[in-house]
């Protein structure tokens, strides 16, 4: 069992307002939120150890407290199929980042199982002055960006509330399967929402959570990217 409090306390001590991606994943995993297996490689020689622990295909992502948008600095490489590819991707990421953001402190490269494509949804959480813990659910991409088709609920939240959120968006039909796409595992999504709720309820230092995207499947779901704001 990972000590969530310890992870957050250490990050705060280091003056960070955001958990590193690997930290975010261990925090999520501690609340039974499904995250794809991962390993933080802190050096090229460490990469081999990591690569062997994570199933293929891999996605490699730079981990740096100074980088907000990893893709913009060439810090993400997807679809890596073997160790050779891992090494190449690692080097390329380091090159890209050193060229585009030479001052960025780099903690390492996250080697992660690249989960299969699914329906992209977003699950979030925040603290509200009036309602305290707030959770959010929506479909990814244009549904959230353009249409702002999201649903909010507040504390105290039940598992039923979380399930209801899924039906509270305009595009709810997509979750039941349209145009030959399969229906999605609603309970798995509701569990993630509920996990985010508990995480905020039990850790006052967590301010905001973005799980974006969460890949949703006929069976199960995986968090494919996570951002946890602390303070």
């Amino acid at each position, binding site marked *: 069992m990972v000590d969530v409090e310890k992870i957050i306390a250490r990050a705060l001590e280091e003056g960070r307002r955001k958990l590193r991606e690997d930290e975010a994943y261990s925090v999520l995993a501690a609340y039974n939120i499904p995250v794809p297996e991962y390993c933080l490689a802190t050096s090229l020689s460490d990469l081999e150890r990591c690569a062997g622990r994570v199933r293929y295909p891999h996605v490699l992502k730079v981990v740096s407290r100074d980088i907000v948008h990893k893709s913009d600095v060439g810090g993400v490489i997807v679809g890596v199929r073997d160790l050779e590819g891992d090494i190449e991707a690692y080097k390329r990421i380091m090159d890209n980042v050193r060229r585009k953001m030479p001052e960025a402190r780099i903690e390492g490269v996250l080697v992660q199982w690249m989960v299969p494509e699914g329906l992209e949804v977003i699950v979030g959480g*925040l603290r509200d002055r009036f*309602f*305290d813990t*707030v959770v959010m659910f929506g479909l990814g991409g244009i549904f959230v960006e353009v249409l702002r088709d999201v649903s*909010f609920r507040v*504390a105290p939240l039940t598992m039923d509330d979380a399930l*209801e*959120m899924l039906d*509270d968006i305009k595009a709810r039909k997509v979750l039941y399967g349209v145009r030959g796409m399969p229906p999605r595992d609603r309970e798995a999504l509701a569990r993630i929402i509920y996990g985010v709720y508990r995480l905020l309820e039990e850790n006052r230092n967590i301010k905001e959570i973005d799980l*974006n995207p969460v890949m949703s499947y006929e069976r199960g779901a995986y968090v494919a990217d996570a951002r946890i704001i602390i303070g």
Partner: protein
Amino acid sequence: MSKRPDLEAFFNPSSIAVVGASPKPGSLGRAILDNLLLRYKGKIYPVNPKYQNELGLKWYHSLSEIPETPELVVIAVRADFVPGILREAGEKGSRAAVIISGGFAESGPKGRELQDEAYRIAREYGIRVVGPNCIGVYNALTGVDTFFLPHDRMRRPPRGPIAIISQSGAFLASIMDWAALEGIGIAKAVNFGNKMDVDEVDMLEYFGWDDDIRVILMYIEGVKPGRGRRFIEVAREVTRRKPVILLKGGKTSRGASAAASHTAALAGDHAVFRGALKQARIIESDEILDLFDMGKALAHLRFPRGKRVGIVTNAGGPGVIMVDNLIRYGLDVPEFSPSLQERLKQMFPPRVAVKNPVDLTGDASNEDYEKALTTVVESGEVDIIVVIALMQPPVLTVDLGDLIADIAWKHHEIPFIVVTMGSDIAKKLEERVEGRGIPVYNFPERAARAVYAIAHCSKCG
């Protein structure tokens, strides 16, 4: 669930002191006194050092002179005197105060300080406070009425099953006046202005447990910081027993703040509050008109057993619009069973549509409505009836109103809602029907909202 907040002293006090009472016609202190004298049966103690005997009452120089402990103290004096008066009330043993006076937090930092001071004193003596900067409390059942609005300006509505909670005094006064005009019954109402102590959560809980209240209407601009969780807990409990309809003011002021995450950026405007209301099963109303329309239906009608709506109309277009709107609000307009359709077919010429809506067409007579309504109601295939009766064709007479009401009262387990559109004769039909306690709406869309409101609470009372 904690026990109901003890706010009885506000709504059912044995005695009321009015600090800042005045015999001067047109003054606020006079209006409060007049309203109490009109209906309140308990003891009234006017407090004002300038007077001894006025309006047939003995007046007091101060609260301390009053021979008993006034259960409720109404304060309508300049803001800077209020802390002193509160202390006096506390020493006297009073535990409930309505502070009508303005000039507190709403007016700036100095007023804020004054309000904080008043709050400290209230806490010290355990005084519950409604206000400041409010019109206070109203109870049609006991005659408690601290509204400083004279009866000729704000008529008092008849007694009825509705309670109103309003952050705005003006909103409450106008809705009460309107309710009086429409004959909509109101039992209790409260406006707490700056809500220094008693707020919407307290009031919701209090009215939630109040057997005099069947429906709660709310206008608020938000909950106090940190109060949201309790609001949800209380509302969830209350909406299991009775419908709560809420209109939220200030939906667009929040704006998107500098947000570190996607989630926070999306949480602007009214999105979080709207989600919270859904979670609490509170019916959200987007317009004052809706609040009125839904309130009217809920005040008059029983809750239906289900959400199947049967429509009988003499007008095709409005019938179609009715169906569209009902479907939009999640109600069912089921096609009648073959046997019911067959019975209806045998009653009417072929031009009459019998699937639901039953469209009797412009030639329909009073008797046609009677036959169609009775047949549909007795079929057991619907839970709610909507009657659309346009009076422009020459056949119908306003006696149709009584005919509809007779059927509705005979089958009172099925709520009836009537739609009529037009001018003079439509108004006459409306009066006839509403006189018998059946709500009438002038547009199908508005009637659909009303149907939605009563069907929303099919598990209530």
